[in-house]
């Protein structure tokens, strides 16, 4: 659902073979040499032209897709995912990806994708799989093998074949990981999870150990309180990296930054070569002009102010600047010699930069969310302590808080939970023995055993599983290990009588009779521009009582509509080539501010119909109103319960051609011939009459 769904899904259409073909055609038209990046900024206008030409041609639909893609690429070019973030790719060979990618998964989050070298993965798993077998394994475990690709294929798809020359063609598996399983975000964690699941290894016990010498200390000063108050730290001692391990270590930090760290807003990670530093360390906050250091991969020193300017154009770092940009003080960490470790959440110092050869790593996580900082630290150290001389041990570090309190990290807390076996069986709908259930849970890295009366299961929650916060999380893991598809499907015996929501029931009935009256149903957006509901109808926005949206990306989403009319007029404008007359209707909700409601606004169910032809056809719209009243069993006439129309006026209507509709003793709407100014503003050319009423009084 969330995260980066739009980007992910858009890339699906980007990869369509037909669009690629068209894209090729368009680049040919532009004389762009093959291999040059498709969207070259100076060629955007030309591209638009080509798209326009295609729009006129038989390839209209493809052209529209092309245009969408173009727009998408432009947006990503503007926003630019970080350099290491390759985004989610489409599956190959989907004939109708457009439809399959169609919007809106219910409830689910966009899953983070980890990109792993297949052969490295298989070596770590101790066996090979066919693609199908591995896909199956992922499915069972709740992962998704999203794409099989290679560095070369990715570059070739994004930048053309020529750029891909010489790129690696090592097979990559792109795997979607559930958004709460931070422990699976890199090769080491994923392999450990799968190996335990397949009972090939036992889940390791992670241990915090005290150093032989003096413990590393990080002192937090009170200046950080207003900007980024929390910090945690730990040491990975005698670690042995290889190129692949090092890459994975960097990549895991990036994944954590993008997900649980909320793009470094909540937590930022800094990892340092401890041998280049000397503790104790100080985490403080200073005026930007007073911070000066040599940042990562730069050769000279800059002040924080200068850095903020330099990084404005950095595709990766520019996304994190806003977190501290307007603060009077910037957070910064020094060692005892005044060497800057990092200026979180933006950049580390170059002095303590880690490399493949680094043996001792000092890890600090700073942030605004203490719980998440502790989780992030636990994930990093548990995952990579595998490569330490004493496997799965982590050296403790002390953090002194401004109030003088001393905390030792990483917490690496193991928690015990008790769940009754029959509860698990009852919630899942299975009948397993407590022993079997304990075994299932152990396969999910939740070491479990049956205790007490033989029905009680004691479960140990390791520090890697911060996602387990309730018994229901444990029950889910039991169900996953049991295999969702092995669960017997049954129907609940819940006996209920169905009822329709009366307003929707009335709407359904009216819709059918509106169509029977010769009007065609439109389905227009509930969001629109201020102009649509106000200026174009001759109103001031304040007169509409519309709710206003604070963060629209474009003018199309400034307000919720207060009338259905603009949507119908825009529908006609988009369908001017259709034979006349055009007779359209819509029955849907509009939104008006209403201080008596809890949220200060409410919907009204409106019915709107328009008649568009060479003549205004007021009598037709009037006749439709009479028919609607007949359907609603409202007789004409002044007497109680009847309806009448009375001459009225409104800025949207032609003078003398507007009437207000009164039914059941209240005004329910208006009908009339639209003002020529309104017609023109909606880019129409013919006379048009319309009726719009609130149908809620007829419930």
């Amino acid at each position, binding site marked *: 659902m969330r995260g980066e769904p739009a980007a992910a899904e858009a890339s699906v259409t980007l990869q369509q073979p037909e669009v690629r073909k068209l894209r090729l055609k368009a680049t040919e038209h532009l004389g762009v040499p093959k291999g040059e990046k498709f969207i070259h900024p100076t060629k955007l206008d030309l591209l638009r032209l080509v798209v326009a030409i295609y729009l006129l041609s038989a390839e209209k639909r493809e052209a529209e897709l092309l245009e969408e893609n173009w727009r998408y690429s432009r947006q990503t070019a503007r926003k630019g995912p970080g350099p290491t973030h390759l985004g989610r790719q489409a599956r190959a060979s989907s004939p109708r990806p*457009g439809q399959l990618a169609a919007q809106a998964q219910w409830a689910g989050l966009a899953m983070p994708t980890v990109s792993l070298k297949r052969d490295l993965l298989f070596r770590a798993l101790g066996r090979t799989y066919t693609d199908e077998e591995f896909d199956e394994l992922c499915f069972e475990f709740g992962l998704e093998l999203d794409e099989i690709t290679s560095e070369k294929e990715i570059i070739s798809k994004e930048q053309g074949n020529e750029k891909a020359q010489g790129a690696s063609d090592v097979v990559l598996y792109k795997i979607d990981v559930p958004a709460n399983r931070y422990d699976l975000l890199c090769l080491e964690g994923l392999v450990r999870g799968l190996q335990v699941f397949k009972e090939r290894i036992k889940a390791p016990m992670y241990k915090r150990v005290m150093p032989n010498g003096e413990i590393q200390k990080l002192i937090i000063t009170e200046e950080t309180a207003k900007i980024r108050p929390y910090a945690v730290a730990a040491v990975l001692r005698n670690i042995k990296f290889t190129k692949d391990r090092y890459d994975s270590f960097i990549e895991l930090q990036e994944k954590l930054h993008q997900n649980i760290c909320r793009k470094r807003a909540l937590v930022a990670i800094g990892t340092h070569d401890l041998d280049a530093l000397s503790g104790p360390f100080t985490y403080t906050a200073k005026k930007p002009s007073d911070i000066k250091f040599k940042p990562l991969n730069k050769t000279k020193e800059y002040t924080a102010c200068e850095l903020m300017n330099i990084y404005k154009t950095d595709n990766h770092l520019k996304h994190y600047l806003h977190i501290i940009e307007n603060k009077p003080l910037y957070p910064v960490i020094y060692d005892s010699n005044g060497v800057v470790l990092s200026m979180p959440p933006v950049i580390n110092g170059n002095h303590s930069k880690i490399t493949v050869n680094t043996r001792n790593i000092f890890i600090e996580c700073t942030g605004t969310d203490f719980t998440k900082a502790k989780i992030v630290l636990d994930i990093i150290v548990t995952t990579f302590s595998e490569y330490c001389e004493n496997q799965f041990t982590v050296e403790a570090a002390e953090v002194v808080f401004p109030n003088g309190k001393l905390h030792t990290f990483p917490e690496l807390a193991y928690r015990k939970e008790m769940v009754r076996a029959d509860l698990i069986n009852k919630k899942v709908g299975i009948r397993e023995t407590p022993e079997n259930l304990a075994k299932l849970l152990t396969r999910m890295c939740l070491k479990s055993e049956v205790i007490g009366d033989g029905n009680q299961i004691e479960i140990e929650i390791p520090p890697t599983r911060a996602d387990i916060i309730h018994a229901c999380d444990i029950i889910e893991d039991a169900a996953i290990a049991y295999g969702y598809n092995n669960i017997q499907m049954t129907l609940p015996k819940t006996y209920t009588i169905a009822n329709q929501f009366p307003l929707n029931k009335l709407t359904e009935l009216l819709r059918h009779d509106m169509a029977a009256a010769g009007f065609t149903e439109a389905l227009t957006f509930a969001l629109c521009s201020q102009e649509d509901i106000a200026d174009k109808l001759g109103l001031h926005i304040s007169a509409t009582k519309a709710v206003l949206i604070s963060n629209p990306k474009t003018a199309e989403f400034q307000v919720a509509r207060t009338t259905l009319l603009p949507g119908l007029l825009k529908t006609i404008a988009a*369908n001017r080539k259709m034979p006349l007359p*055009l007779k359209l209707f819509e029955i849907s909700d509009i939104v008006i501010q209403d201080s008596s409601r809890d949220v200060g606004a409410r919907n009204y169910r409106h019915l709107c119909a328009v008649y568009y032809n060479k003549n205004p056809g007021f009598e037709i719209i009037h006749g439709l109103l009479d028919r609607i009243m007949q359907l609603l069993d409202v007789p004409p006439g002044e007497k109680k319960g009847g309806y009448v129309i009375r001459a009225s006026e409104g800025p949207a209507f032609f003078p003398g051609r507007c009437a207000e509709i009164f039914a059941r003793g209240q005004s329910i709407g208006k009908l009339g011939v639209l003002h020529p100014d309104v017609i023109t503003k909606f880019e129409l050319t013919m006379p048009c009459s319309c009726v719009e009423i609130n149908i809620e009084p007829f419930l």
Partner: protein
Amino acid sequence: MADGPVAEVLLQRLEAADGGLDSAELAAELGVEHQTVVGAVKSLQALGEIIEAELRSTKRWELTAEGEEIAREGSHEARVFRSVPPEGLPQSELMRLPSGKVGFSKAMSNKWIRVDKSAADGPRVFRVVDSVEDEVQRRLQLVQGGRAEKLGEKERSELRKRKLLTEVTLKTYWVSKGSAFSTSISKQETELSPEMISSGSWRDRPFKPYNFSAHGVLPDSGHLHPLLKVRTQFRQIFLEMGFTEMPTDNYIESSFWNFDALFQPQQHPARDQHDTFFLRDPAQAQQLPMDYVHRVKRTHSQGGYGSQGYKYNWKLDEARKNLLRTHTTSASARALYRLAQKKPFTAAKYFSIDRVFRNETLDATHLAEFHQIEGVVADHGLTLGHLMGVLREFFTKLGITQLRFKPTYNPYTEPSMEVFSYHQGLKKWVEVGNSGIFRPEMLLPMGLPENVSVIAWGLSLERPTMIKYGINNIRELVGHKVNLQMVYDSPLCRLDAEQGPPSTQEAA
């Protein structure tokens, strides 16, 4: 049609003719307009295989009106020559003659006549030769006689320049006997009339056969929108399964009901400005059920009800922020809260289908608003097996029978499962919905009894509709850019009797 006699004559001639006859020649022979013969040919053709007619086009030279006159009376110059007596004629008198002006200059250049400007009563015209050959008249008479081919190309074009000749294209029919040729045909009636019924004359009359391969005339009618036709079917399915419709007529929702009530933490990415439309006015919800709000706050920040909680500083201001609801689950939360207030607890099955809003980047498959379908069952002791059973029944009604369930993570359900169905066209499993059991941290603060479980699932309305109606660009379906022709042409929505294009028939 007045072509009865002509048609009869045509048939008689055709019987006698060797091979066939030309419509134009027949018209000339009968002394009728060519169009009359063409009419007869067409009406005979309509009767079936009586005759065969092949359209031919021939080019022909014809005289113009002036050309006809010259062929009859002689060229202007010849007429001028003839009107000059041996003793001559005053030029002014000659010029008054009908052919005077044109004929005079031509006759002069032919050196047939001369002008004596020294005559006493003004210029006088005399013959130069005794007799003349009127070549123009002779040539035009040749054309008139149908022998235009005797003239050279140069001569013809000269006459055409003088607007005496014109080339016409004549469309004629070469008519021959058809497989059902007969000379005796009686005129067939086209339609049954009230008179025929009352007089009974229909008994003796032959009727013209209908052309059943022609298209009918579509009725003038209104049409329902395809997406809403699919909505109607989904409503129907839920109603058949005994689900009650929840009120969803509140697009504006507070963050509290949209997120906090669902145990979605306040730093959750969904609550980001990039994903959700927040309101500037009214910016905040003024009324919240404060008792319940406190329970929610405690659960988020400290845990409770068996939960560790998220352990963060929960802020009321954040919960008050108004937004356009991002899912209809906010309406489900309200419905479940109302259910929880009813004592004793009674089981419930709810559904809703309505609009939701996301501040997303738009593309061919994503709009800022779309429809969500949601089903909810609340009862004592519901299991994951029950959820799967209900899903199986629900999807069977959509015509989807092969289902598979994948573990997944949703913020407010645990366990959670994605629903996959096997797509015949793609030869692979595709996701058709998402589901789960609502977390106790969501249900217990509402006041629902501890042993009550709530299972729920959801999907979008647009996706099955796009597949059902073969639409690739969501804008053609939803919003003002809709293709009205598509709306006019769309068939009934029968989800369980899928007849769509073969490559798409299995998916939802």
